[in-house]
């Protein structure tokens, strides 16, 4: 059974601006956010049958809810993130403690390099993609590649609205891929096209990419994605996936959606 790490949104809110989505003036409706989060958890647990691990929220860490950025978990090893912005750096200790307490070998990234976890490292069983330039440092990938014996193809993120790789690229089981090509430069687009043949990838239309269609949670043949992405949904169904949609617009105010709110544990 798939296990995901999540964090209840008790202290979620917008307290700083570190991506183009965040506006201090754009207040989060807290009750609505809590309701949306619980609905996502219900879909994951009840409709899909995922096991959820909950890390306790902390006041003053509004983005702890986005557990995808805690780090990346490979087997029993957890590579803890080193955030680019000091606003999120205080989350590192908290995540590291959780991993340690849950029996993971904790690996940290050397000083001076940034790495924002599963937000920037995701892929297929035999190779991964690594997003760099906005948040993570490209120099991290050779280190992780050597550690986990996995090919990591770095992709430069060129649009600040898609500041993490998981906002514009989503590998699915069965080798399919959702992505928003314009978030990458021509080299990245070519690299993706050479790896995933055209029938297996959907170039998500811009309006749906901006609703974070690519920030989907993929568990087996289930795909959970934000509501309002009909073209993506229809392509997924044609490819044999069962889609689940949820309202997550309160979290979009912070630049995150379904995938950002979860971290795959194994």
């Amino acid at each position: 059974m798939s296990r995901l790490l999540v964090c209840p949104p008790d202290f979620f809110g917008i307290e700083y601006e570190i991506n183009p989505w965040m506006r201090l003036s754009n207040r989060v409706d807290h009750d609505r956010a809590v309701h949306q989060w619980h609905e996502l958890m219900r879909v994951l647990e009840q409709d899909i049958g995922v096991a959820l691990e909950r890390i306790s929220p902390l006041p003053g860490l509004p983005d702890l809810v986005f557990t995808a950025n805690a780090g990346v978990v490979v087997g029993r090893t957890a590579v803890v993130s080193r955030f680019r912005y000091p606003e999120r750096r205080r989350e590192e200790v908290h995540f590291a403690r959780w991993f340690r307490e849950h029996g993971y070998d904790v690996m940290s990234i050397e000083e001076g390099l940034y790495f924002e976890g599963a937000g920037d490292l995701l892929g297929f069983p035999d190779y991964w993609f690594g997003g760099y330039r906005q948040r993570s440092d490209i120099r991290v990938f050779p280190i992780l590649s050597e550690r986990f014996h996995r090919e990591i193809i770095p992709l430069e993120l060129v649009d600040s609205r898609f500041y993490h790789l998981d906002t514009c690229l989503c590998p699915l089981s069965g080798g399919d891929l959702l992505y928003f090509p314009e978030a990458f430069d021509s080299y990245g687009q070519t690299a993706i096209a050479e790896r995933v043949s055209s029938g297996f990838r959907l170039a998500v239309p811009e309006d749906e990419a901006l609703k974070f269609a690519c920030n989907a949670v993929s568990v087996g043949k289930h795909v959970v994605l934000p509501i309002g992405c009909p073209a993506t949904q229809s392509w997924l169904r044609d490819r044999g996936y069962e889609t689940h949609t949820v309202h997550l617009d309160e979290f979009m105010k912070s630049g995150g959606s379904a995938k950002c709110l979860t971290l795959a544990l194994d």
Partner: protein
Amino acid sequence: MDHYQERVALQGHIIDSLVLAKVLDLILMMGGTFDLEDVHIGKTREEPSHARIVIKTASKTLLDDILKAIQPHGASVEREANCRTQPAPADGILPEEFYATTHLPTRIRLQGRWVEVDGIEMDLAVRVDEQHSTAHTIPMGEVREGNQIVVGREGVRVTPLQRPSERDVFGFMESQVSAERPHGPVIADIASRMHHLREQHRLGRSGSNILLAGGPAIIHAGGREALTWLIEQGFIHILFCGNALAAHDMEADLYGTSLGYGLRAGRTVPHGHEHHLRTINRIRAIGSIKAAVTSGVITHGIMAACVRQGVPMVLAGTIRDDGPLPGVITDSVQAQSAMRALIPGVRLALLVASTLHAVATGNLLPATVPTVCVDVNPSVPTKLADRGSFQTVGLVMDAASFLAELARALGRST
């Protein structure tokens, strides 16, 4: 020529991701060039690849801009060590491990900065100033106790010569010496360079000097008139020779002979063997070659032309010299440094009919100076090339024919 360079390393899955292609494109698009020094492509998907790239630019600013642009893509500057220096233990003595120069453009790393070594010449040491900001070559004999001298090879970069853009005989840089090679095109190329350099020289541009180093065979063989013409027409800007060339040139003016041979009659004249001694004696009595010319005793020839044109001369003496003439430097080390002082600014060197002066001058010239060595004996240009002056174009021909043909190519009517 690209003067600035830095070596960067790139590693990871840089091939399929096109990161290497992107970095190389960036370098070119921004106006730099690169050499891919070492590329290792991973044999399996998991195995990473790595590449070492030498980036070259024409300016420091451009190099910095390129480094800044490619660093986010993982290119990291390979930090090279600063060069090491040690104080000279005593006057005239270099530290044991001193770095010996080549005649190629050389830079050393001082306090993290690449600094051009000035006065490039082969077989010298490199002295660093007290502030560790400049570097200059220094001959062993001129070293003073405590001078900071570069030791070892760390932090020293020698730049191989790039093929010159001019597509003439100097563009090949192959040191070919052959008596069978047709001389005409080679001389035409030399003439065309000289023509261009004379224009530059007349405009007062620095770095446009033509140097001629020659032996007395020029006079014996009948090349005196052609060389005199070349000097008078402003094609020669520096002259290196010995006692003999000067003595026989003035002998010809005073007696019409060269080493006793009547230059017109072509045979020995009675007591002709004394002529050069009498010439030397006369000039010694006057006090200097310059005074002999200005006073009207010497009226024509190479020495007269040099004095009138203000062409600086270095007369280096040898062990077999008669006299010698006033102005001949008999201390070889002093002669060497007088010659060395005139090398900066030389853009073409003609080494004609003298093994001794050709090799001595060749040793002083940086590889960047196009050089022609003319001798009837093929072993002279070969010797020069063997001693490292690979930029030399060798011409196996008689000095007089060479100078006459060269002068004709430059417009002298005969």
